[in-house]
């Protein structure tokens, strides 16, 4: 087996050094009744060629996003990832390193994390950011738990414009903690009343901006209401590219910002791994979940980096830790950071403009299709449309998929119990979409509606 270096004579010599008659004797502590004497009745190992063939066969059973006019978003966005990102990720020193517990052997990873934290804080307009969470949904759940610790209050209000996966992940996380989630109904028009629900038990309001259905809201009035009531405002961001063009949540008064960082550097990968971004105010840092890289000096007085404030974490505090998180998304944070470094200030602004322009062009193109109605007046690179009273958007999507067009996500995929959402389709446009893609979508919609 190509990954196993020992020859039979190596094994023999090593057993002799141990003083063991055979390898079986090393497993003497395993109860004899349970020990397996043979390999399990499962397939045998294969060479590289056979494995490649099998995966090529699996890959061919999928319609990959790059092979179709593609308008799917709903929490995960298809952006172009520059070639340099992936080449750098494959550096073995990054790829095959563990969590940087030995800082003298990990200054590379630690400096990357310090830079990443700075980038995330700048992008979100917050004071501090951690070294990543699993994904946006779990970061959102952690933000609610943190808000409850900070405010010592039991109730979280989750906007109906929050991504349904983030909502249910958060609701699940709260289930046995004694905390409550107040889940508002899905809100495609952005008309829900959040402020009216705040009371003295409210730990936080969680609002996604732009919302799951695309609409943008000015967060400032909500932030003021939260501040007055002693609750925290948690702002969720699904596509951080938008922050190149839109006001940062921190500048609008957010107390905690959570985001899905997949848009930069990571690619779709069928939805995982993602990258949870988590940023907050400096005064809350000791209540934060997750790893933090910090600056310090070495024995010679030179600047260096370490993991710090670990007294918050599970390996020190055990059941009193701020979170159980250990392994997070280090390599994805690196990918995000490289992509953002390649973009820079000017590149990010331009990328964001291209996205917004693509969405505006798509909206204009679809306005010419009979029966299609755009739901929200504001959006960044994604909006919801209503396809007509008796139209089932899921069926339309399936019909178009059969024609090789990946035409967005039907709201019913998330909300099957809301018949009024059956005609609603969520469409995203990014810098990867061409005018020809938009024509293909519009023409196909015009035919089937």
């Amino acid at each position, binding site marked *: 087996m190509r*990954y196993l270096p020992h020859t039979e004579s190596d094994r023999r010599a090593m057993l002799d050094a141990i003083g063991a008659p055979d390898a079986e004797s090393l497993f003497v502590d395993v109860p004899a009744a349970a020990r397996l004497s043979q390999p399990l009745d499962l397939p045998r190992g294969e060479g590289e060629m056979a494995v490649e063939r099998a995966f090529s066969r699996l890959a061919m059973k999928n319609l990959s996003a790059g092979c179709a006019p593609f308008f799917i978003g709903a929490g995960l966005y298809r952006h172009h990832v520059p070639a340099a990102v992936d080449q750098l990720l494959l550096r073995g020193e990054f790829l095959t390193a563990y969590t940087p517990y030995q800082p003298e052997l990990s200054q590379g990873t630690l400096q990357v994390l310090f830079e990443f934290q700075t980038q995330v804080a700048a992008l979100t307009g917050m004071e501090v950011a951690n070294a990543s969470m699993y*994904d946006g949904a779990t970061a959102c759940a952690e933000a609610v738990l943190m808000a409850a610790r900070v405010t010592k209050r039991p109730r979280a209000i989750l906007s109906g414009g929050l991504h349904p996966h983030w909502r249910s992940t958060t609701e699940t996380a709260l289930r046995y903690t004694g905390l409550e989630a107040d889940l508002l109904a899905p809100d495609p028009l952005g008309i829900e009343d959040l402020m009216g629900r705040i009371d003295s038990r409210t730990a936080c309001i969680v609002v996604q901006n732009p919302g799951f259905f695309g609409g943008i809201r000015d967060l400032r009035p909500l932030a003021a209401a939260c501040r007055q009531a002693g609750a925290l405002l948690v702002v969720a961001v699904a596509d951080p590219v938008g922050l190149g063009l839109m006001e940062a949540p921190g500048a609008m008064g957010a107390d905690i910002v959570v985001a899905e960082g997949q848009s930069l550097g990571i690619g779709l990968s069928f939805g995982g791994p993602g990258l949870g971004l988590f940023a907050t105010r400096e005064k809350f840092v000791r209540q934060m979940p997750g790893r933090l890289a910090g600056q310090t000096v070495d024995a010679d007085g030179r600047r260096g980096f370490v993991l710090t404030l670990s007294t918050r974490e599970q390996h020190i505090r055990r059941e009193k830790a701020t979170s159980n998180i250990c392994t997070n998304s280090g390599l994805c944070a690196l990918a995000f950071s490289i992509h953002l470094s390649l973009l820079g200030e000017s590149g990010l602004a331009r990328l964001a403009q291209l996205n917004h322009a693509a969405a505006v062009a798509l909206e204009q193109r679809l306005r010419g299709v009979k029966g299609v109605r755009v739901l929200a007046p504001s959006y960044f690179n994604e909006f919801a449309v209503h396809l007509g009273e008796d139209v089932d958007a899921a069926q339309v999507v399936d019909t178009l998929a059969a024609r090789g067009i990946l035409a967005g996500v039907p709201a019913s995929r998330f909300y099957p119990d809301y018949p009024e959402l059956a005609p609603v389709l969520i469409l995203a446009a990014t810098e990867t979409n061409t005018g020809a893609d938009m024509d293909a979508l519009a023409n196909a919609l015009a035919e089937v509606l």
Partner: protein
Amino acid sequence: MAEANTLSGNRGLMVEEPLIFEMGSPGRFGIDLPEPPPLDLDRLGGCRRAGPVGLPDLSEPQVVRHYTRLSQKNYGIDTGFYPLGSCTMKHNPRLSEKMARLPGLADLHPLQPQATVQGALEVIDSLADWLKGLTGMPAVAMTPAAGAHGEWCGLMAIRACLEDRGQGHRRRVLVPESAHGTNPASAALCGFTVDPIPAKADGRVDLAALKAKLGPDVACLMLTNPNTCGLFETEILDIAQAVHEAGAFFYCDGANFNAIVGRVRVADLGIDAMHINLHKTFSTPHGGGGPGAGPTVLSAELAPFAPLPFVVHGPQGFTLVEHAADTPESKPFGRVKGFHGQFGVFVRALAYIMSMGADGLRQASTDAVLNANYLLARLKDDLSPSFAGPCMHECLFDDSFLKDSGVTTLDFAKALIDEGFHPMTMYFPLVVHGALLMEPTETESRETLDQFVAVVRGLAAKARDGQAEEFKQAPRFTPRRRLDETLAARTPVLRWKPPAG
């Protein structure tokens, strides 16, 4: 020693590198993007950004050099031996990377119509089949994103099952003192209280003490097996029986699964739930701290409570079940993350498993255990083993061999760095003094192990010979010497800030 200073501060291949924020010049691009069309009226609802983000502008060559130089300040498995106990730092096959990058697998959106992603759903289903086959368990929750996340998932299933049975009062979780910190932290997130159980002198659970702690309020036992001392719990069948007789569940922390794959099935040990760290046992890269994946195998009793979504295989092909209403026979406890799991990690793990096969996986575990026992045998006279062998895939030493030398476990680890090795896990588990936990894994050759043994023995001799001062100075040959962690925690500097003025 002559520490030659250079004009630049660089030392040959060891190049000083500023923060990316200290580089750059406004107007540079690392990516060529077209000029955006003029937009007379934006649709941003009055929320257009007022000021800059504060990012540096760089060209591609600058960015590539920056990260390449940073990578050179890191140590990975590709660099050398990484015997970090409890972490299973084995070779990461490059075939797995190549497969994960096939456009037909990488460039897929999780919300595409299911008819267009049958191959992706088959990847998830195939990996699930392997995990069930290797453990003998009837079900697996695929979506947890890491080991701790899998622990939480397993405990949530237990809690949901207990509530369903009307036994919500069972809130106490028994956890050995030697457990990973994630165990009690995960238990707390499920509303459980943690009750530690002691070990015997041989490093294993004290069955009598465990039985005394069992009672009608116990939800489950959380046990790592092989345990964090590198020992198989010899009384595990009796432990499982006692736990079940008390009406509680048996959760196993599967961090050390690499020792036993193909040697014993989890189901045959009476375990009800166990997470599997794909980034340990199944060789997906750890990436400097993730991403990982922590699929959690479940017994028939817990299976109905597995979280959404999951893949089922029927006559129409593969279906992703995303809503409780679509699975009336089960009672999912909720959702643990966005979308459908760590798919990119699944592809890598499946490529590794198919490469190894049932025969190769069994050989891998055997060699992992062989390598650990070889280290134990060759170091036992110079270091102080905490427990007699045989061990499983890792071997544990305490610091009594350093007694009166003035050298600590930390100093010893730092001296290993100068010798070109990544240190072992230090000060864990907490049950032995100044622990040194070594996990060589099966992908290390005998030559590497012999080189390591020679260095460790040599360092032990130096410590005995009163050369403590040399240890205190270590490491001397790394890009940075020992870092002041107290300063970092006392005065946290967690981000770069532009210089004042």
